[in-house]
């Protein structure tokens, strides 16, 4: 469904990605793990069109999307939950969700979408009139995910959804990610530093190290891999 090949990305003279190739099959949960600064966020930003690759291709459903601007990419059904949530703090929860559906032509009949995200995250419904900046960290993450779902994506990319969230909530959020994948058939590309959790819920995993894919395998195999164990799973 989504395929990156030999992607190289710079920030000015700083090389962030040297050579990244990965493949996300339709309907799967694929995870991209790696240490801080490995280039995980850069990869997602490039797919979303926020950054332009120096070379390499991004193909989505068989078409090259590497040169499209961000709004065209959302239009095609790829949406991203950015690192640090990036909710619109001065807008209400409802308005944030409406922003998620910004490109929807049929904006007056979004009730199905609202019902749907409120069903996954009932807490947002109670707070729909609240200004989003006043939500707790966990609620903001729920909002960020819901907002990304409002555009009815076929591929959802999440950048460190566990960042800055209490472990118990992290668990809930990961369960929701699985639910989104299974009940809606949305393909998921999950970027995580918390490799344990990510490999638990995903089908396939890639390990990124300083801008290069170090290894990739089925998630269960990666969890058993000695190198992954010592470097990313806390040696357990």
């Amino acid at each position, binding site marked *: 469904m989504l395929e990156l090949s030999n992607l190289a990305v710079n920030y000015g003279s700083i090389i962030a990605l040297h050579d990244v190739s990965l493949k996300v099959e339709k309907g799967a949960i694929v995870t991209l793990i790696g240490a801080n600064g490995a280039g995980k966020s850069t990869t997602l930003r490039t797919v979303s069109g926020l950054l332009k690759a120096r070379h390499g291709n991004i193909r989505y459903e068989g078409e090259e999307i590497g040169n499209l601007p961000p709004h065209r990419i959302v239009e095609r059904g790829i949406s991203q939950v950015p690192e640090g949530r990036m*909710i619109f703090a*001065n807008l209400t929860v409802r308005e944030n969700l409406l*922003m998620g559906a910004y490109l929807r032509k049929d904006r007056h009949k979004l009730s199905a979408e609202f019902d749907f995200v409120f069903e996954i995250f009932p807490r947002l419904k109670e707070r729909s009139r609240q200004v989003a900046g006043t939500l707790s960290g966990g609620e903001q993450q729920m909002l960020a995910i819901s907002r990304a779902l409002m555009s009815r994506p076929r591929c959802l990319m999440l950048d460190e959804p566990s960042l800055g969230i209490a472990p118990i909530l992290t668990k809930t959020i990961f369960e929701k990610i699985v639910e989104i994948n299974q009940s809606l058939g949305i393909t998921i590309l999950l970027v995580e530093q918390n490799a344990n959790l990510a490999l638990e819920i995903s089908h396939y995993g890639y390990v990124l190290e300083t801008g290069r894919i170090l290894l990739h395998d089925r998630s269960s195999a990666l969890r058993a891999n000695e190198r992954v164990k010592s470097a990313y799973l806390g040696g357990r």
Partner: protein
Amino acid sequence: MTSTEFFQQLINGLSLGAFYALIALGYTMVYGVLRFINFAHGDVFMIGAFCGYYLSPRLLPHFTGGLTPLGPVAVLILTMLICALLGVTIEKLAYRPLRQRPKLTVLITAIGVSLFLEYGGQFVFGADPKSFPELMPDRAIAGTGALTITTTQLAAFIVTICLLVALTFIVKRTRLGMAMRALSNNPTAAALMGVNIDVVISFTFAQLSIDRSAYGSSPRDQGIRCGCSRRHRKHSGRRRWRNYSRRCGDICRWLGFFNLSRRDRILAFNRDFAFPSSRNFRTCA
């Protein structure tokens, strides 16, 4: 102070305040969405005034008989369109290429745009003061007792209120307004939602240019003039780095200009460009 004087000053204050409100609105809108101070704000405003100046004698004669009241409206709308176009063009040519650069770069470019418009204006329109054509008869409204409210004051006030209401509606209630608020809060996230940033920013510029020009060409009975006074020029030559206060000063002077009630004041004004706010108030007639 008598109570008549008090209410008179209140009215004067409101009509001047409405004017400041529009200028402030333009500044804060660009600042709010793009986080930079658009120094060229006052200059687009000046162009608006000159559009009004040149369009009025050409357009007004076409509106005769029952159509007379539509004349000023036509001038206003055409001026708005021209200024919207100018605003969008400035953004596209000068600011957009610098979107990813440090804000200071854009700021300095804005000063450049401002100087360009100012001296370009002097070149094209000349530096002499011109008296603004009468778009509508300026007379005191009857039935206000000892207070003087002129039709011009009233019209300007109404225009301001309409624009404020329209802008509030756009920003608070429409999809594009929501995109503007989202963009100002987090441009990256807005792009990830599918907001075409270029379109929204162009629209913001068009919108403000519209209210700038609305005021620039709104009915009034005073003079307009392009560029700096001698005194001011000397000053800015010495202290170019104080451009910010200078631009504010420019705007204030424009404000002063637009609110002068008698032509002879313009001469005085040109002789002495001291901060004019104290003279903007019409004293009791």
